[in-house]
């Protein structure tokens, strides 16, 4: 912590990764809900030629210039994916794969062209491939903050519209909302979020920053606003955690560390989130199964007693075992029921319902039939 406050570079990097985590977390929420998770992957790969071309055209390595180039290329790639899926029978996934690889290939061509450029200033462009968090400077962070701030403000401004668009585009249409423009707008915001992170996390891993925080957040809540907030916080935490971890351990690259943190969040959320968590669901199911099993033993005892005049008529265990062949289970259930005071054991080892047990059985039978 002390190091964080004193070390200038570390502070810059951590701030940058936190901002990128928060912005991609927020926009990722919508991408994941709209089944555009892999669009992020395509956009980030497709940004590469944009970065190269922006450098060739301007000769500048200022992050704003490169980000604009990356954004335009990413946006163009999205438009082509739409054009392909709308114009032919080619499916969305194929269009994504095609555009992603072709744009990336074009990016490689541009980068190799730049390498032969007489300008020695090109070094560092390939850091976009895997990201170079350590190269973040204050100017970069300011650019990221402004772009991210604008994107988040736009998200907030059109919150209602985007919400309708994400969950029920047809309904949005019936409200006479400009669905097409909203779609383009939201996708543009996603492109902005991706572009902000490219320099830090790199082309390949940026898609994880879009998907992971949102997927983790999804497990904890069914409310869009809460999900977006949780996703932003998760993203920011991953960013900070990744940056801190990678400085405290040598040879630990920042981008991949952030991604591994984010994956960790997803795994924890999938396992432990209160309602959707796999662990809780297992526990709930086990409890329910046990409940059902002991209910069925109780009802069987009731059925057997019904053949006599007395509903609390005792029966020996073998009679019950005809219905419940697993001796251990049967015995456990009888003990449980006994503990609840619903059955009792007579001296001769026979089991009978108590008056309480009879009442519960009546209620159960009514519930099940009703």
């Amino acid at each position, binding site marked *: 912590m002390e190091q964080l406050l004193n070390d200038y570079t570390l502070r810059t990097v951590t701030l940058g990764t936190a901002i990128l985590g928060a912005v991609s977390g927020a926009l990722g929420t919508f991408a*994941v809900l709209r*089944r*555009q*998770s*892999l669009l*992020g*992957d395509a956009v980030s*790969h497709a940004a590469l030629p944009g970065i190269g071309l922006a450098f060739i055209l301007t000769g500048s390595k200022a992050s704003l210039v490169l980000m604009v180039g990356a954004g335009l290329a990413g946006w163009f790639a999205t438009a082509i994916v739409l054009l*392909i899926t709308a*114009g*032919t*029978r*080619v*499916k*969305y*996934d*194929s*269009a*994504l*794969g*095609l555009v*992603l*690889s*072709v*744009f*990336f*290939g*074009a990016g*490689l*061509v541009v*980068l*190799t*062209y730049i390498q*032969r450029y007489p300008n020695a200033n090109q070094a560092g462009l*390939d850091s976009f*491939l*895997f990201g170079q968090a350590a190269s973040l400077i204050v100017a970069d962070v300011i650019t990221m903050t402004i772009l991210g701030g604008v994107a988040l403000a736009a998200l907030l401004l059109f919150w209602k519209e985007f919400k309708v668009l994400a969950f029920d585009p047809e309904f949005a249409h019936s409200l006479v909302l400009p669905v097409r423009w909203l779609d383009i707008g939201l996708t543009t915001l996603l492109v902005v979020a991706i572009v902000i992170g490219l320099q830090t996390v790199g082309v*390949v*891993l940026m*898609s*994880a920053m*879009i*998907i*992971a925080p949102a*997927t983790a957040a*999804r*497990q904890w809540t069914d409310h869009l606003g809460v999900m977006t907030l949780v996703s932003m916080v998760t993203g920011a935490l991953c960013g900070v955690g990744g940056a801190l971890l990678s400085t405290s351990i040598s*040879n*630990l*690259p920042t*981008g*991949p*560390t952030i*991604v*591994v943190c984010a*994956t960790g969040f*997803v795994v924890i959320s*999938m396992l432990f989130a209160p309602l*959707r968590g*796999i662990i809780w669901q297992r526990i709930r199911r086990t409890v329910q199964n046990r409940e059902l099993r002991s209910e069925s033993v109780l009802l069987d005892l009731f059925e057997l007693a019904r053949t006599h005049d007395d509903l609390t008529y005792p029966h020996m265990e073998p009679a019950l075992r005809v219905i419940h062949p697993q001796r251990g289970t049967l015995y456990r259930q009888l003990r449980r029921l006994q503990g609840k005071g619903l059955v009792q054991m007579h001296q001769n080892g026979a089991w009978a319902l108590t008056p309480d047990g009879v009442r519960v059985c009546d209620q159960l039978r009514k519930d099940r039939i009703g």
Partner: protein
Amino acid sequence: MSTFQLEIQLVATVVAAACALPGTFLVLRRMAMMSDAISHAILPGIVVGFFLTGNLSSPLLILGGAAAGLLTVVLVEWIRKTNRVREDAAIGLVFSSLFAVGVILIARFARDIHLDTDAVLLGELAFVPFDRLILAGRDLGPQALYAMGMAGILCLGFILLFYKELKLATFDRALCATLGFLPGILHYALMGLISMTAVAAFDAVGSILVVALMVGPPVSAYLITNRFGYMILYSVALGMTASIAGYWIAHLLDASIAGCMAVMVGVQFAVLFCIAPEQGVLAAWKRRRHQKWQFAIKMLVIHLLQHEATPEADRECRMDHLQDHMAWEAAFAEGVVSRAVSQNFLNTVGEYLELTTEGRELAREAIIHT
């Protein structure tokens, strides 16, 4: 052309063919993005394989990579089955975290070896001829040629052997399962082949070109044929031509070979996207235009049929009346009439329009069918 160049092209065409074969299935099964996922996720497998053997050219590396590829498939399937994360998000999460783990492993433990993340992602075809297979003192040609050749032959053998089962599993998974052909096993076998091909190819062409060659040629072939067998053949042919064309363009521009090949894959698609006989944009435009005129002609003959031999015929069946009645522009009305005349559906007598027998027939048919 030197042997050197010949060998590069030979390897490239073999890679293209080996990728296009299983790629066809990916595209048809809407799993194109799995190629992206697998080709990235093999990285940690290769790294672990390297740690175990200490040798970068050991066949164990291929096994490790293929295992990591299969692990991706299994994990994606497993996450999807929990019903907590959608498939696209699951794909994005799994491959990016595996890739991140690979990058971290390399950065921390394998800094000083040739296994470099750039090489995995980008490949370097130009170096392929330097890595030669030497057996009993004899130079048998580049090693990559044999690795890729093996992968290609395995793919081809698998497809030939299980052609009809694969076809069935691809187009009607439910029927395939009903008939007892185990689509699940076929699926994993196919994914295993894809992983293996991706691993064998990554060293030579890089993972992105693997995606381009697995998705691009089959998507292009999908535009020009409706037959499964032809689609496979066309994809292989398209992939091979793209790689040779890409090589020579890279030669001309002195740029990345893999990048140029990916771009050529994109160019192929763009061309077919425009001019494909049925699926192409041009063909669709022509079809729509034709339909527009044919529809107008039908409307015209129906109109004429309704009014011919009635008292209003003189007023209704006139050229100049069409603008009012059909709300057609004068030029459009003229176009419709001249097309109808040339197709022998009506005759013009001055301004008066007179149906021919064919015209009446067409009108009656149109009325019945609408």
